[in-house]
């Protein structure tokens, strides 16, 4: 018997728990040349802002041991072009679409989400209140519980479909932020966004990113992400999308066991663009081997000492 991979988050059914992370799959066009996007539970778009953004000047990525730093700086086409140029193509794709939204002010978040409210194809919005790479906004919302609650509550007024709050690990107590998001009316939590870090060239004494610091992602952050998902799952009732260093089915299983209901694959797509397909195959084999009928049977089942 083929195990059931379907998961339901905030009333929305996904064909499987594997999603691609914001900023790691563009708006989907390139990945569609690698595998049919209908294989994915969902595609999460690059963060959309009100105005188009160029992002930081290059260099804006650097390789690190078991990971990478990026300071792309939210380069994106802006919400108007997103709706006019990207959505029509996304509409033809048989996968759920989660539109990631970033802003530098409360007004900006609300305005973008209001524009997306009329766009049926935006199955969910993921609010990026955690980008470490822009000086204004973004992470300011995600590191302050009152602002987290406020921005979510305001967006909920204009966008009626489910809202995902994407949390930053760059805080002392992520549970406090998770609770604030829940208080504000978030339907789902996703975590983690990248961790602030930097890297320096010892020959030139120059930082490797024009932004001087960036966000660390990839395998290096997986243990941290797992511990944070565990903490949030133990203290908060909202469903969780686990993110951070996921490259294999084994990684996915770990995240499900500590309480994630779904996951996003980010940096691993740069190395293996068809990673989600491989993950799904291996996940199915694992469930069969463990004689589990549903992938949801794994969620939160971690055994602790």
């Amino acid at each position, binding site marked *: 018997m083929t195990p059931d991979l379907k998961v339901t988050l905030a009333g929305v059914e996904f064909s499987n728990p594997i999603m691609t992370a914001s900023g790691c799959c*563009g708006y989907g066009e*390139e990945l569609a040349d*690698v595998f049919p996007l209908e294989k994915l539970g969902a595609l999460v778009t690059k963060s959309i802002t009100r105005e188009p953004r*160029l992002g930081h000047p290059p260099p804006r990525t650097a390789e690190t041991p078991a990971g*990478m730093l990026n300071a792309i700086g939210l380069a994106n086409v802006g919400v108007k072009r997103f709706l006019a140029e990207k959505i029509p193509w996304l509409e033809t794709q048989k996968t759920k679409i989660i539109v990631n939204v970033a802003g530098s002010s409360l007004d900006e978040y609300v305005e973008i989400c209001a524009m997306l409210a009329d766009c049926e194809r935006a199955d969910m919005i993921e609010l990026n209140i955690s980008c470490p790479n822009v000086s204004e906004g973004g992470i300011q919302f995600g590191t302050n519980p009152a602002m987290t609650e406020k921005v979510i509550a305001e967006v909920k007024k204009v966008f009626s479909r489910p809202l995902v709050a994407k949390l930053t690990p760059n805080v002392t107590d992520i549970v406090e932020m998770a609770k604030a998001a829940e208080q504000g009316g978030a339907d789902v939590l996703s975590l983690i966004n990248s961790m602030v870090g930097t890297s320096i060239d010892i020959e030139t004494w120059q930082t490797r990113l024009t932004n001087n610091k960036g966000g660390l992602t990839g395998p290096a952050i997986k243990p941290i992400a797992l511990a944070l998902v565990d903490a949030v799952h133990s203290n908060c009732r909202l469903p969780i999308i686990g993110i951070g260093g996921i490259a294999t089915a084994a990684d996915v299983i770990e995240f499900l066991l500590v309480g994630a209901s779904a996951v996003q694959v980010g*940096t691993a797509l*740069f*190395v293996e*663009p068809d990673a989600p397909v491989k993950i799904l195959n291996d996940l199915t084999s694992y469930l069969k081997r463990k004689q589990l009928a549903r992938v949801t049977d794994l969620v939160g089942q971690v055994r602790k000492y």
Partner: protein
Amino acid sequence: MKKLATTTVSVTARRDLRNDYYSLTFGPYPRVTKCRPGQFVHIRLPETDILFRRAMSIASVDTDRREIEIIFKVVGRGTTVLSRYRKGDQVDLLGPLGNTFSLPKKSERALLLGGGVGYPPLLYMATHMVRSGFDPKSIEFFYGGRSDRDILDRTRIKKLGVNFHPVTEDGSFGQKGLITHAVESFIQGQKKDRMRIFACGPEPMLKAVDDLGLREGINGELSLEAPMPCGIGVCLGCVVPLKQGGHARVCADGPVFAIGEVIL
């Protein structure tokens, strides 16, 4: 065949060239028929802790044997690992990626400019042009390096029948000086509207070529390099600023750009 795919291939031949340069040939590569000059493959280094793939231009293809060749210089960790591969070792290729050099008109004189590690795509371009029926004598192959030891594959280039112009900074082989100076003296008194430049090399060289093309009114194309996390256009890490404003992704919108198009 899917537009983009990863393929496991074996090393079928390996050549240790001079001065830390190596050539590796991979096969069987079913996507060999899709390869064009200017394109690159993104190479995964299995069994290492190196995360990203490494981008390497395609230096030659053999469609009968379904093989492709890369030529590279050891400059860091990834290229050190690559240089240790032996016949039979397996690697994983993503590609062919990127856009291509455009073929000139048959009536045009092609100026191929390869500087140092930028030489491989121009070898492929020259070979492809000759195979496509271009008169080898309409191809001027400029190859620049620091010294004698940097100029690879001399017999191979000569065998193509192209006009070969080696240039070294210290004068130990060919003309002495910078490749752009050699090109500059070559074009003196020639019809510039009948020429097209194709160049790949270090950034200062490309900048000088870009300036030269604009100043002398010679059209052409430059192949750029940038650190490339993904190679397929999704991470936005490899961008280069455009003169008209905005950014282009070197991996997916390039690596080949028109002279005058990018800010170097």
